[in-house]
Each structure stands twice: as C-alpha cells, then as structure tokens.
C-alpha cells in the first residue's frame, strides 16, 4: 500500500512538472505568472533527485556505506572533520553558489525566458549535478584528492598539467569578469560605492575582534557585522543626498577598476584573518539571507513575467552580448546548469568532511539542484521587469545610442516600448543618477529583486533601500570571490614559480607573497581594465571567454570522471558522464571558433580587430584616438589568442583521454585504479557527526 501511494505521489509530481513546463514552453500571448516557473523547476528537481540521482548512486557509482570515508580514517579536527550531512550541505552550497547563477541567467534573458530556463533545469539535472556528484565520489575514494591530482593519476601526467593550467586560466578570467560586473554596478553611484567601501572597515573590525578579542567566535561577530552592513546601506542614502560626500563617492569606471585592483592585491597580501575571512563570513550570512528572501518574495508576490519566451535576439544580434542562441546561451549560463569550477569544491573541502558515501548524493547532486533554482529565480527577477527597461539597463551605449532619447527610440524600434522618461523615473525611484548602459547583470537583477522585495515589505517607500541592499549583496559576495580567488591564484603562481626558483614557493616569504600577488593581480587586472575601456561594453568579450574557460574545466572534470568509471569496469554506464562531456566539448569548441573567426565584428575578435585596423588605414580615426584604437586591436587579438589556447587545451585533453581509453579497452587486463584501500567503517549506522552524537 505504501509503495502504491509513493508511486502515485511521484506520478503526480511528474505530471505537475510536465504540465508546468508545458505552460512555460507553449505559452503565447497573455502574460505568464512566475509561479509556473517555480512549480516546473521544483517538480523537475524532485523527480531528478528521486529517480536519476538514485540511479547514479546505486548503479553507476555503487555507493558503499560500509566503507570508511576520509574523515573517519584521518579524523584530525582540522581538514578531516566528520560533519552532519545537513551542515555539510550548507557548507558545500555556500561554496559553490557565487555570482555566476545570478549574473548568467540575467544576461541570457536577452534571448527570452524560455531557452535559459530550460537549460538551467535540464543542464543541472543531467550534467551539472552529475559532474558535482561523481567528482565528489571520486575524491572521497581518493582521500579528498584535488581534480588536478586525480587527472594526473587517472588520465595522464599531461592531463593533470592541463587541469592545473585550466584552473589558473579560469581563475584569471573569472576574477576579471566579476570585477567588471562590480564596476558596472558601482559606476556613478555614490550610494552603492559608499556602502561597499564601508564593508572594508567593517570587515577589518570583525577581523581584529575575531583574532584578538574573541578568537573564532564567528557567529557573534557575523551578527554584529550584518547589523553594521544594514546600517551603512541605509546611511548610503544620506551620502548620496549630500553634495560634498556624493562627489567623493562618485567614481568613474576606470577609477573603480583601479580601486578593485588595489583591493585585490591588499586582500591577497594581508594576513587572511584581517580582511578576507571576516568578509567571507559577512558574505555567507548575507548571501543565505538574500537567496531565502528572494525565494520567499517570489512565492509571496507571484510576479508576472513580462519578457516574451523568445526574443528577436536569438538570431545573434543581441545588444547585451552578440551571438546566436546556440552555443551562446549555454556558454552564458554556466553556473546554475553546469560549472567546471564546482569540481574544485567537490574535490576540495567537502570530500574530507563527508560522513558516509551515500551522503554524496544529497550533497553533490542536491546542492547543485539548489544552485540551479537560484539561477531560475534570477531569470524570474530579470524577466519580471518590462523588456524595454531590461534592455536599457544592460545594453552598451555604442549599440543603443548615447542619449536617453536615442536609446529609447532604438529599443522601442526592436519592439520593446520604452520612453526615456521611464528610465529617469526608475533611476530616481531607486536612488541612482542613471540606470542606462549598466551591462553586467547586477543592476538589472537588483532592480528586479528590489521590485519583488518592495512588493513584500515597505512598498515604493523602501524601493531605493532594497535596490541598494541588492547591489550591496551582489557586490559583497562578488568581492569575496575576487579576494579568495586572488589568494588561491597567488598560491598557484608561487607553486608554478617554485619550479624555476625554489624560494619563490615559500608561502610565508614576504617578497614572494608580494611578487606573486602582483603577478596574479596584474593578470586579471589587465583583462578587467580592457573590459572597462571596451566600447562594446566589456561583458560582450569577457563573459563568453569566462563561459568557455568554465566549461573547459567541466570538460576536464567529466573526462576524469569518465576515465575513472571506465577503470572501475562500469563501461555500461559511462554515458552518464560521457554524454554531458560531449555536449560541453561541442558547445565550447563551437563558441571558441565563433569568438575567434566569426565575420561579424561584434562576435569574432579577429573580425573586430580587422575592422578597427581598416578604419585606421582609411584615416577614419582621429589622430588623438589612434593609440587607443591600436590598443583595442591588440586586446581583440589577445582575446582571440586566449580563446584559441583554451580550445587547444580541450583538444589536447581529449586526445590524451582517447589514448588512455583505447589502452584500457584494448588491454584486456584490469587497469590500475588509484583508489584508497577499502577500510570498513567502525561508526554505527546512525552516527551523524561528532557534535550530533549526543542527541
């Protein structure tokens, strides 16, 4: 009887999901309520978790709870700490959920709500969650080894080196592009700039408190920090209203870029307890609160989705970024559907803290489903505003026109009615000077979030506070990724440098710290500066390279996973990782080719460089701007070279993997698997972590 009712419940969930998906996909004409998105996503996630992840756990990976996990064998209270599965789920989710699932779907909304939403749901269920889950399992079986170590041991020495380079490449591009998102969110906004600037002294204060007054008392320090952050968000309004203070905090894009570069260097070189860690604590609490509030707000307000299912820009002429729906929708939305960066977390801290192998399903697969849901909420927030407003905020002036009237006329001409006065009023209502040309996703997401929040609490009166709270939330945790990433990048540079000169690798040696910090900051800082001065808006060039490098890392992870499954003798099930790998390689290679060679100068880097060179040759560039244009030409060619190198790395890795797979399949003998030996667990079946044993 119980079995029959369980089957009935799952049939009902599947039918509900199918019905909601059908409503989203086939809906035309009247506006659609966002509740359908939530029902479709949640039903699909439940079905995917109950059915597909159970299949992967039982058949493909054959998880074994009698086997001791790394935290039982090495229990040291430092890295290897037995952790309750709900707590570890929270840890893992906080680590994987960065700005990507918020910004990517917001940018991809230019294609309409449908492609991005379907990719978020299907991509996560069939590819992203599988990648996170399988890599977590592989790392658990290898004492928590990193992706690079596993690639070196299971694929080849060269595969491991490519993984290491891929991590450095993605780190560089990621830091530049998220820096650009912050610049575009803060430029000409004294309120937002003041708020974010104040988070630095707040973090320093918390750092000193946690180091000297109450060591390690994170919770009480975070509560104080969050209260202070809320205070500075409100105080920002007074700064924006004061003519003298407002001038101090109104910064240009270039000034903001340099401020972020200096901040990144300082966060990397200063002791981690002083600035980086306390900022991270603040960010984690605010992130959790903001995501929970957004979900509650959407369920409470149930906004209408004003964006059409498909826009005219599926043909590749999009103003936010150029390129057709295939492959650029799949490159733009990486985090939220499949993100290679997650494999670094799945093979980092999490495998060292997991209690049982079976928890990997809930933590690896489940946390990624939740991140995908964050992406769907970002899509709802972006699509709940009038399309004209969305395009006005996210389009660069070189595409829509330099004045409000010209831009409104261009956008209205696309079929999305907009009046210049609407944008002036909206900027006034959210407490900004202007909202035109703020590409990067953060401001439009903040407008969407503020409208949802203010419909729940405070109404129009609190719209500007909510807008700046949303901007602060996005910028705060973007900068947390930026400073943590710069520090990790510094260690990578030191590690690579130590091969040439040993002392450079000493992590406590100050000249080494300063030089390696300067190198990594110079690398991403150059791309950030290039994005800031790019007349096409920067995001158009940098976000696709970021998507390509992120998917490159996903390809590395899936190659490693497929190789390990093959070595484990699970040949029958390798399609589980092989098919997502093939898909990721196809989209990455197609996007790389188009970004380098496409004849449209808004898509192809080389075509753009050639157009600019031809303009110089024809004398159409004023003498004063020739040097600047030559720099732009160099940058376009550099972007083409970077994209080419990323694509070449994928090809080399595929060749390496194919050679390895051929040798496994043709040898006939059992391949060498570098798993830790089996040790039976001594923990009772109901043991749920050190701190929970007493309850």
């Amino acid at each position, binding site marked *: 009887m119980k079995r029959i009712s369980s089957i009935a419940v799952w049939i009902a969930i599947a039918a509900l999901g199918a019905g909601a998906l059908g409503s989203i996909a086939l809906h035309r004409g009247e506006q659609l309520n966002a509740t359908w998105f939530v029902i479709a996503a949640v039903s699909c996630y439940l079905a995917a978790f109950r059915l597909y992840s159970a299949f992967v756990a039982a058949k493909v990976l054959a998880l074994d709870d009698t086997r001791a996990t790394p935290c039982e064998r090495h229990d040291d209270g430092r890295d290897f700490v037995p952790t309750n599965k709900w707590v570890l789920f929270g840890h893992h989710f906080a680590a994987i959920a960065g700005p990507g699932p918020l910004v990517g779907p917001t940018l991809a909304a230019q294609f309409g709500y449908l492609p991005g939403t379907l990719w978020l749901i299907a991509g996560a269920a069939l590819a992203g969650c599988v990648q996170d889950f399988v890599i977590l399992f592989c790392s658990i079986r290898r004492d928590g080894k990193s992706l690079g170590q596993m690639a070196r041991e299971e694929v080849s020495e060269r595969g491991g080196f490519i993984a290491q380079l891929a991590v450095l490449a993605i780190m560089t591009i990621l830091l530049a592009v998220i820096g650009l998102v912050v610049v575009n969110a803060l430029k000409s906004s004294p309120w937002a700039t003041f708020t974010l600037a104040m988070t630095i002294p707040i973090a320093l204060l918390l750092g000193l408190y946690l180091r000297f007054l109450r060591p*390690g008392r994170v919770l009480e320090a975070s509560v104080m920090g969050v209260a202070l952050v809320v205070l500075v968000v409100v105080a920002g309004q007074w700064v924006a209203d004061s003519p003298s203070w407002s001038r101090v905090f109104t910064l240009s894009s270039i000034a903001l870029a340099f401020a972020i570069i200096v901040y990144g260097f300082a966060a990397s070189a200063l002791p981690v307890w002083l600035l980086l860690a306390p900022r991270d604590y603040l960010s984690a609490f605010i992130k959790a609160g903001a995501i929970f509030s957004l979900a509650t707000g959407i369920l409470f307000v149930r906004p209408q989705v004003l964006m059409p299912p498909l826009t005219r820009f599926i043909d590749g002429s999009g103003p936010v970024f150029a390129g057709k729906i295939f492959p650029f929708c799949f490159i733009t939305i990486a985090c939220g559907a499949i993100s290679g960066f997650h494999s670094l977390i799945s093979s980092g801290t999490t495998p060292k803290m997991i209690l049982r192998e079976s928890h990997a399903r809930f933590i690896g697969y489940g946390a990624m489903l939740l991140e995908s849901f964050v992406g769907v909420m970002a899509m709802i927030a972006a699509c709940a505003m009038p399309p004209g407003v969305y395009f006005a905020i996210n389009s660069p002036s070189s595409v829509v026109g330099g004045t409000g009237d010209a831009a409104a006329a261009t956008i209205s001409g696309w079929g999305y009615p907009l009046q210049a006065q609407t944008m002036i009023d909206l900027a006034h209502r959210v407490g900004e000077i202007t909202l035109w040309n703020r590409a990067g996703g953060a401001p439009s997401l903040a407008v969407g979030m503020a409208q949802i929040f203010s419909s729940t609490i405070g109404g129009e009166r609190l719209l500007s506070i909510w807008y700046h709270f949303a901007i602060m939330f996005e910028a705060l945790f973007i900068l947390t990724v930026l400073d943590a990433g710069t520090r990790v990048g510094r260690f990578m540079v030191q590690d690579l440098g130590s091969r040439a000169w040993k002392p450079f690798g000493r992590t406590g040696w100050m000249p080494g710290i300063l030089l390696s910090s300067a190198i990594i900051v110079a690398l991403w800082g150059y791309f950030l500066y290039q994005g800031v001065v790019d007349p096409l808006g920067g995001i158009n060039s940098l976000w696709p390279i970021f998507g390509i490098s992120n998917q490159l890392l996903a390809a590395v992870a899936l190659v490693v996973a497929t190789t390990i499954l093959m070595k484990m003798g699970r040949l029958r099930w390798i399609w589980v990782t092989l098919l997502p790998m093939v898909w990721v390689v196809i989209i990455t290679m197609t996007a790389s080719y188009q970004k380098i060679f496409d004849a449209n100068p808004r898509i192809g880097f080389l075509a753009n460089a050639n157009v600019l060179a031809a303009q110089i040759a024809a004398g159409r560039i004023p003498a004063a701007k020739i040097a600047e244009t030559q720099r732009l030409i160099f940058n376009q060619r550099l972007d083409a070279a970077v994209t080419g190198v990323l694509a070449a790395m994928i090809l080399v890795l595929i060749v390496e993997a194919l050679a390895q797979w051929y040798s496994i399949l043709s040898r006939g003998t059992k391949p060498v698997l570098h798993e830790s030996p089996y040790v039976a667990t001594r923990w009772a079946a109901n043991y749920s972590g050190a701190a929970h044993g007493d309850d």
Partner: protein
Amino acid sequence: MKHAARTTSRFLRRFWRGLREWCGDAAYESYLRAKARQSASCRTLTPAEFYVEQLDRRYSRPNRCC
C-alpha cells in the same frame, strides 16, 4: 502540548548546533574533541592559534566558486 514543546526545543537545539558548525563557530570545539580521540602527544593549540592556522589552510585552496 508537552510533546510539541519538546519537539520544538529539540529542533531549535539542533538548528543552533548546525548553524554554529556551518559558520565555523564550533570549529575549535570539534578540534578539541578530535584531539581527545587521538593518542598523539603534540601540543594542543590555543583558540587564537587554531583560528589563524585553520584560516590559512582554508584560504589556500579554491573554497569559493563563481
């Protein structure tokens, strides 16, 4: 009624413990418990030493994603 109050109080206790573990507030206590389980004779770190050492380790590898 009594049962509901007991269940709520138990849930809140668990939630509080989970929150402390999630944010790192209980890390030193976990370290002390692990230390007690081990027979190794190396010196036990003070809360401040443990805090700094733990942060240095945590932030030397990718721990925040895009």
